[in-house]
């Protein structure tokens, strides 16, 4: 049975860029272990040689002509940003390079 340590939850949360509270880490360690234990039943199935289904529609035509079409105006694109420089048309974030 998969048991999840707090350290593992921290490692995964860091990969997912979420700073969990210590209560959340404890809760998730227990709950995710329960869910993963439940999911262990899939291991009963012999899937050797079975292809994976990554999408369900065999006739999808994902290719199209590579032609420019109108897209969002810059002012519309940045209108929802929590911080931006609307004159320059830029999203603003905390300093990245010191």
């Amino acid at each position: 049975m998969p048991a999840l340590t707090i350290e593992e939850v921290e490692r995964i949360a860091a990969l997912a860029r979420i700073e969990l509270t210590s209560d959340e880490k404890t809760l998730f360690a227990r709950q995710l272990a329960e869910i993963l234990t439940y999911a262990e039943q899939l291991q009963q199935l012999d899937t050797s040689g079975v292809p994976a289904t990554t999408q369900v529609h065999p006739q999808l035509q994902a290719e199209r002509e590579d032609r420019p079409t109108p897209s969002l105006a810059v002012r519309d694109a940045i209108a929802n940003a929590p911080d931006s420089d609307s004159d320059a048309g830029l999203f603003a974030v905390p300093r990245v390079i010191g």
Partner: protein
Amino acid sequence: MTDVRSARDIRDAVASGARSATEVCGEYLERIDALNPQLNAFNTVCGERALGSAAEVDRRRAAGEPLGPLAGVPVALKDNLCIRGVRTTASSKILDQFVPPYDATAVARLEAAGAIVVGKTNCDEFAMGSSNENSAYGAVTNPWATDRTPGGSSGGSAASVAAEMVPLALGSDTGGSIRQPASFCGVVGLKPTYGRVSRYGLLAFASSLDQIGPVTRTAYDAALALSVCAGPDPADATTASEPVPDFTAALSGSVAGLRIGVPRAFISSGVDGEVLAAVEAALDTLRGAGATLVDIDLPNARYAIPAYYLVCTAEASSNLARYDGVRYGYRATLAPASTLQEMYDRTRDEGFGTEVKRRIVLGTYVLSAGYYDAYYLKAQQVRTLLRRDYEEAFEQVDVVAMPTSPTPAFRLGEKTDDPLRMYLTDVFTVSANLVGLPAISVPCGFTSGRLPVGLQLMGRMFDEATLLRVGDAYERLTDWMTHTPPLKADPE
């Protein structure tokens, strides 16, 4: 409430001039105002915008211009569907003030057909949930019993149609999120075939599973709405090129010769006795009308829930990476010297609710190095086994029938502390998403406690027409749609 109650009735009354779109819209807005405090079905009501759209329909009629097939029909949109200029939150704090600069394709098509968007319905945050309790704006209550959930995640859409706050709502269905709430609220919910309706403008949860569909009071209205929304869209490469029929034309009222597959072993345990009895009675009714019941086996159906929760969380962890506090949505308040990394970490912890974080972490785990093959790849292989089960079944039968949910609506708070127990409520609905099949839930009776029960029918890829035909034929044989929940629209 009024003399016209279905989308079709309203469209006909507006087209004939018996009612004006403005008058109809005003009545529905009043009812929303009266009922929303007790149901919490709407996150946002856009009354002024709606009345403007209704006036335009009335102007077109007066000018003799052509009217669309949904002219004057009030519609509600699940709050994960974008509409230009109207706040769209996905019931998440992280999108609390988000105002989309564009329309979802399905929404644009509804409006082009004359539908009047009256508001955005509450849902589980980012459509993750089976009870509508994972909403930053509070749970929706079930119109039939206000101490119970309306189901989820499209709980607001189902409750609003059941309470006649609108005749038609759009929802999204990733693992049952249209059908299960439709079942809990006693209305019709249709998940179309994957690829039938464009997902452009639907805030993505799990892209290989998500599909937009209608919630209505009748199968006819679902057929009408699907005919309007379906079809290829250059903005969504996963839309299918299959021709879109007029689905209303398929509603012959007949089920003679129809073969209905019933997976007896799969539904033999874990189903509430009254739910099973209502479903069996519905199947008897269809048999009495000329359908044949065939026992079928779906040997891998019991693996659908674990496969589903691995696939959907994996896809969610990737899709929700976009909510980073940069381009839109919430950003945590930070000390001046904070780094970009701290901004991401804090924004996502404060902006997402518990279930969304749980799923992102689980999905990140199953995709991470060392676990990918055992979890994610395995689940995708099980999807193939499930698809083969259904391919075999559909060699013998035209539709597959089972309960939509193993229980009627459960109590608010009953499963919130136990995510795994909540996930298990989706046992009958997730297969349609994993395989891509269309599926519908139609009301098929009540428990002794007056809680609605839904019959689920699944069909072959792109064969929504048969599901709608059976649903419509069953409606003609029963009177479930005439039952209304015990709500008081007028303040005491």
